[in-house]
C-alpha cells in the first residue's frame, strides 16, 4: 500500500527510499551493525554451505527444507558433552516415537580434521538411527557456524592432543527453514520434547 503512494514520486523517490532502507538495515541488522553475542541462527533458507553426510551424500541447507530440523554441533573425540547430547537426543526421539520420523536430525562436526565421513558413520551408528552426521572442509564448517551464529575453537590439551570448545545448544528449525528455538545444554531436559513438538507443529501452521 505504501508502495502505491511512493510510485507517485517516480523512480528517484523509490530509489531514495530503497537507499534509506538499505542504510537502515546495514546499520541495524546488516554487516555494519553491532555483533550481539548469542544471536539466533538465520533461517536455513538464508544459509549457504556444502557438506557430506555420513553416507557420503552431498548435503546443504536445502537438504533440510521441507521437514522440521534439529541440529547441533560437536565432535567425535568429545568425551562428555557430545555423547551426552547425542544420548539425550536419542531419548527425545524415542519419546516422540513416530513423530521423530518426520524430522531431520543432524550432528555437524566442528572437528573435520579428525571427523571424516567414515568416522562420522561409525560414531552416529551408536545412537538413534534418525541422527545424521555431517562433515566437510574446514571453510564450509565455518560457513555453517556463521549461519547458526555458533562458535567453536580448537584448544590444545596437556596430553598433546587438542579438544574443541563449541556451542552445545540444540537448534530447532521449522519445515520452512525458519529458526524456532533452541535447547540449551543446561536447560532441564523435560523442556526438550515440548520444544521439539513446537518445531514440528510450526510445519502444519505454514510458518512464515
Amino acid at each position, binding site marked *: 500500500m505504501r508502495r502505491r503512494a511512493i510510485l507517485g514520486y517516480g523512480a528517484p523517490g523509490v530509489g531514495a527510499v530503497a537507499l534509506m532502507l538499505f542504510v537502515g538495515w546495514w546499520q541495524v541488522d546488516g554487516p555494519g551493525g553491532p555483533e550481539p*553475542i*548469542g544471536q539466533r541462527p538465520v533461517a536455513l533458507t538464508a544459509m549457504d554451505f556444502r557438506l557430506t553426510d555420513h553416507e557420503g551424500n552431498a548435503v546443504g541447507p536445502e537438504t533440510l527444507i521441507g521437514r522440521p530440523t534439529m541440529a547441533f554441533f560437536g565432535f*567425535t*573425540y568429545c*568425551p*562428555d*558433552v557430545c*555423547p*551426552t547430547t*547425542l*544420548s*539425550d537426543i*536419542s*531419548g527425545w526421539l524415542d519419546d516422540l516415537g513416530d513423530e521423530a520420523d518426520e524430522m531431520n536430525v543432524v550432528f555437524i562436526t566442528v572437528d573435520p580434521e579428525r571427523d571424516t565421513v567414515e568416522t562420522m558413520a*561409525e*560414531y552416529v551408528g*551408536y*545412537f538413534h538411527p534418525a541422527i545424521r552426521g555431517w562433515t566437510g572442509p574446514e571453510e564450509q564448517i565455518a560457513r555453517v557456524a556463521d549461519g547458526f551464529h555458533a*562458535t567453536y575453537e580448537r*584448544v590444545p*590439551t*596437556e*596430553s598433546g*592432543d587438542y*579438544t574443541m*570448545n*563449541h*556451542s*552445545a*545448544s540444540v537448534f530447532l528449525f521449522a519445515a520452512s527453514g525458519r529458526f524456532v528455538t*533452541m535447547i*540449551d*545444554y*543446561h536447560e532441564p531436559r523435560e523442556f526438550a520434547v515440548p520444544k521439539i513438538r513446537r518445531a514440528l507443529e510450526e510445519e502444519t501452521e505454514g510458518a512464515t
Partner: protein
Amino acid sequence: MKKYILTSTLAALLTLGGLSVPALAGPEDVVVENAWSRASIGMNRPGAAYMTIRNTGDEPVTLIGLTTPLAMMPEIHETKTNAEGVSSMTPAGEIAIAPGESVALESGGLHAMLMRLQEPMTEGDTFPLTLLFDDGGEVTVEVPILGIAARGPDD
C-alpha cells in the same frame, strides 16, 4: 610402569572386596556410589567416568588425583557452558569435600577424564579407578563400562 602396576595391584588386593559398586575402601569415610562410564571407540579418544563421592566422616577430605591402569592420564575435568551456550573443558584441580557432603561427577559437570587409554573401553567390562586424597589415602572403585549411548548408571 612395573612399580606402578605393583602398587595398584597391591592397593586393589588390600582394599577391594569384589567388583561390586558402591565400593568402600581405603579411607573409611569416603564412599563412592553410582560409578559408570561409557564404552570407547578404539583407544584414540579420551573416555569419561562418572560417580558420586561422599564424605561420611567428620573431617574434610580433598581429592587430589586419580590413577588407573586403563589410562595414562586420568584427571578430574570440569565441563563449563557459558552464557552464549559454548561448552569448554578444563582440569578441575583439587576437590575438597566437606564432612557430610558429596561431590557428583556427572555429565556436563565434573568428570573423570581418561586420557591416553591403554586399551579400548568395552561395554560390559569394568576397570579399577583409584582416587587419591591429600592425606595419602586412596579409594579404589570398580567402574562398570556401559554402552556409548548410556545416559546414566542405570542404563
